[in-house]
């Protein structure tokens, strides 16, 4: 399992892209997708709503459980991935690509986001 070097990561297993024009893309990591099992339902935040770093903004339902979805940063939701709403298995099959979850116009980001290597250490063992 490899975590793309250009992304940053939260300890709650979200990834965050570098912001372009202030807008970053968020998804969950392959590690998290594997731990969840087959994702069957994704409730994503609504476009236009404001999310707070580290607070619940949706949920991911898998065969065996439901998990809260957190935003790794604060900001305004500008887009959600309708492909994932229609086919939640994208979260499992392409967590870092087609399985992205939402885009957020970043207003504030916490200081404790991890690099790919730090995240790999966080999930090891």
């Amino acid at each position: 399992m490899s975590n793309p070097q250009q992304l940053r990561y939260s300890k709650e297993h979200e990834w965050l892209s570098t912001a372009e024009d202030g807008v970053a893309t968020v998804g969950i990591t392959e590690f998290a997708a594997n731990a969840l099992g087959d994702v069957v339902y994704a409730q994503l935040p609504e476009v236009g709503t404001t999310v707070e770093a580290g607070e619940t903004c949706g949920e991911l339902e898998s065969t065996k459980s439901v998990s809260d979805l957190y935003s790794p940063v604060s900001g305004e939701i500008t887009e959600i991935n309708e492909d994932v709403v229609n086919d939640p298995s994208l979260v499992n099959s392409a967590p870092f690509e087609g399985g992205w979850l939402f885009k957020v116009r970043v207003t504030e980001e916490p200081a404790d986001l991890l690099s790919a290597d730090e995240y790999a250490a966080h999930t090891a063992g």
Partner: protein
Amino acid sequence: MSSTELRHTALDAVHRALGATMTDFAGWDMPLRYGSERDEHLAVRTRAGLFDLSHMGEITVTGAGAAALLDFALVGNIASVGVGRARYTMICRADGGILDDLIVYRLAETEYMVVANASNAQVVLDALTERAAGFDAEVRDDRDAYALLAVQGPQSPGILKSLTDADLDGLKYYAGLPGTVAGVPALIARTGYTGEDGFELFVRPEHAVRLWQALTEAGEGVGLVPCGLSCRDTLRLEAGMPLYGHELTTALTPFDAGLGRVVKFEKEGDFVGREALAGAASRAEATAPRVLVGLVAEGRRVPRAGFGVVAGGRVIGEVTSGAPSPTLGKPIAMAYVDAAYAAPGTEGVGVDIRGTHEPYEVVALPFYKRQK
């Protein structure tokens, strides 16, 4: 099972080599899934799946009084089970509460094997041992004497036939016969928990790896895959089969669970729970208890055990098991509901999913029945 070490089956190294995600199940470290649980589920429905069920609890009951003991200790008519046949039954407390549901195999005239759920094996063993007092019968803990492998799915007869001379065509559903599979002595039983045709193979633990590998090779060309406990749960749920701790508990009698038919009042002699169960039977006749029904979601949110079933703004039942159904492509659940809402097609029934009342259709169980 908090501080105790997890127990490992004889196939532990095989599971790890296959990259299984493992889980603590009743004190055993068991495979949850090897890859996608959905793919494993669909493999069992359309081809074949291979399961390690070595956590199940085998108890051997032998002696001239074995049948009499089991008739006293269990609610079924065990003396009437023919040699080579198996029966689904239950063990209840004196107050009628269900201690466990069981499969009892009659291996010989005076020899039975009782298979208990892993989580209840000790309770069942203790109850049988206690109830054996005064009977000419021996109750033996054989949990360590067996590994249990299951091959389930439409391709399973063909896979097994290539590895055994045993007369599988003559082996009926809920029957078992001793034989040899891939050179390994096995009790071959046509039983399972998936809603498909299939076999359960009880073998000595030291033979488990060899048998697993032989089945894997024999099934390679027809799409057999290793399967974990996660898909076992969705398979049994689609098949409408109860799971102890969910649909069955000590708080329920077999009559409350809609399984009163397993209680055989007509058998000779007394049995543990007879009086309480007779009361439960007449109460169930006078006032229908809550009924176990199927629920199918219109939306995509999944009901889980313990969620309230609602209608007209009030709680009319409780979900006992719920999961996304790979076969139906929708979330499904089993739930106990008030009898007035139990008819298939009852309008206005929903499930309270974290505060939102999601609409559900009431259906008859099972959700899935294989074509024979």
